[in-house]
């Protein structure tokens, strides 16, 4: 068995809330990520799905140490990133890069594309001016743009092209892991398909490992090898994409899957429509966080927190009634 590239153990992030009384320390906090553990193996794509507010993006930022976790361990190639010195951290960040959701907000409007792509190389003091430029042109071609684009500014590009620029920036330092936080959500379907194809191509060419965050279940199925389903800061189910899509165990996963719009007008599918929306992560419901919206919830779910257990061959789910369904 191969060693995991990235090990995440019991990762937590609680954002303290401002106290209503001045100078008094607040006791409440938003539990954005509340005890998440998973492994990422080299060359695979781990998908993370869930509704807005379930902690997907916070987790992405925690893995890359863009925000400091309250508790937990993020081990990359055997070294714990949590609590690492700034300089050391910068060094390991070379290998863990990010692509963000909004291609309109994530590029500096005052820099040319060339400057934007060279920036990571400058920060990490790699090469001289000449070789950086060489690398920049190479990267532009890798992501399907041309060298003449280098002198243009971000606003001159369409959403899909901007996302390509973001990908080029992420690849500049030859990373091992790329964390993609909703990279195609802001794009049109046909452009979305182009960017997804590009990401897959790059994964093959450069042996990349992806953590792919999305709320679009069809995109995740196409992109990912394994999928983790998150609900209110916790992973409720995790398994290979076949297991998740064909044999979902957790009622939340089932509801999510049944909410995917139809594939054709002839498709008559039975819906599990969830009532309400995700509860507040400040005071999450007692017991199983999902019990208030769960179609099969029992008395026991209100009091006892279900553990994430292995259902079969590494397919994990946290529900009291997995066997009974």
């Amino acid at each position: 068995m191969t060693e995991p590239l990235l090990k995440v153990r019991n990762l937590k992030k609680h954002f303290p809330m401002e106290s209503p009384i001045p100078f008094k320390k607040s006791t409440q906090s938003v539990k954005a990520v509340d005890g998440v553990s998973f492994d990422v193996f080299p060359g695979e794509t781990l998908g993370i799905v869930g509704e807005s507010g379930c902690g997907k993006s916070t987790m992405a930022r925690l893995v890359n140490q863009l925000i400091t976790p309250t508790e937990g361990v993020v081990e990359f190639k055997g070294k714990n990133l949590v609590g690492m010195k700034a300089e050391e951290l910068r060094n390991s960040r070379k290998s863990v890069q990010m692509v963000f959701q909004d291609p309109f907000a994530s590029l500096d409007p005052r820099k040319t594309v060339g400057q934007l792509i060279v920036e990571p190389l400058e920060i990490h003091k790699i090469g001289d001016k000449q070789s950086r430029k060489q690398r920049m042109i190479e990267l532009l071609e890798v992501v399907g743009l041309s060298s003449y684009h280098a002198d243009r500014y971000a606003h001159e590009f369409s959403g899909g092209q901007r996302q390509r620029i973001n990908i080029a920036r992420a690849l500049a330092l030859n990373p091992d892991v790329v964390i993609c936080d909703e990279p195609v959500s802001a794009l049109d379907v046909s452009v979305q398909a182009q960017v997804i194809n590009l990401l897959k191509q790059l994964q093959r060419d450069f042996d990349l490992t992806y953590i792919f965050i999305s709320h679009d279940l069809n995109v995740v199925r196409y992109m990912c090898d394994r999928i983790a389903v998150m609900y209110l800061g916790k992973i409720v189910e995790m398994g290979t994409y076949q297991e998740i899509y064909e044999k979902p165990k957790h009622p939340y996963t089932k509801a999510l899957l049944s909410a995917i719009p139809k594939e054709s007008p002839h498709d008559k599918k039975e819906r599990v429509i969830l009532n309400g929306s995700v509860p507040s992560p400040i005071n999450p419901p007692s017991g199983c966080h999902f019990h208030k919206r769960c179609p099969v919830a029992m008395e026991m779910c209100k009091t006892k927190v279900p553990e994430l257990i292995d259902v079969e061959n590494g397919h994990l789910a946290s529900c009291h009634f997995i066997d009974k369904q």
Partner: protein
Amino acid sequence: MPEELLRVENLQVEFRSGLTTTKAVNGVSFTLNKKENIGIVGESGSGKSVTATSLLRLIPEPPGIISDGNIFFEEKDLLKLSKKEMRAIRGNEISMIFQDPSTSLNPVYTVGNQIIESIRTHEKISKKEAKQKAIKMLELVGIPSPEKRINMYPHEFSGGMRQRVMIAIALACNPKLLIADEPTTALDVTVQAQILDLMKNLQDEFNTAIIMITHDLGVVWETCDKVLVMYAGNVVESGTVEQIHDNPMHPYTWGLLDSQITESVNNDEPLPTIPGSPPDLSQEVRGCPFAARCPFAQDICFSKKPEMVETEDNHYVSCHFQTKDKRLDRKEQQNDRAIVKG
């Protein structure tokens, strides 16, 4: 015989700024019957939203201008009405829901205020009665404890709840036509399913016709009877959902259908895409607007704009080539892929 509610003929909308004129909508025609749902699909910039906002004459003028065409709503030509007459129609006979529920509600008024405003603008009833009606509307759109919620501000609602409030405002005056501009794009799939379900149920109750603007074909299959496929300000194909899904005729529609990721897509092969990007609408496009990206384009496509042709009952397509070869090519491609999948 279904009764006709809306007829749009050769609608043209331009945006003029300085020396450039951008033709956002270039000759759109369609009809909509009572209680019918029509979906308008296309990529960003294809003119879907401009078409819909022009129906209510909400295009900012200037720089926008509806330069040609007719919009008949129950035999009234909307483009010939005065501003006052138009106001009586907006929100009363035709309502609209917008994409982003967090920016379309006024943050400084309570939700109740905003529903009451809509009701009292069009109906002569007392504040008290209007409030009663507002509570009833909130209840209908599935907001729990409406008597309490009516006094709350939009920021106290979640995205899905805000969209429900928008629907309550839109349906408060029992409109004959509801225009929904990407109503679920900003929402999660689970909430999207709730909202689409709600819209379907309310349609049965209010007998409203719906124009659903979306880029998600799944939403169209779910909710609509008919579809218009728009590209660069033109309708390139129109027909019933079954016709468009089972027997698409325009190469752009194929591209759109193929680039959707569905269950049947194999993970190991690249997704089919449409190469290139849409034309710049501030330049005059000669010939077929899709020609530059079309895999079947011939010389004629670059010089002559194709007409809308009826290929089967109520299925229209604008393409020079109606030959079977083109379709066979696509069938073969699909079969090849099916074989690979095995």
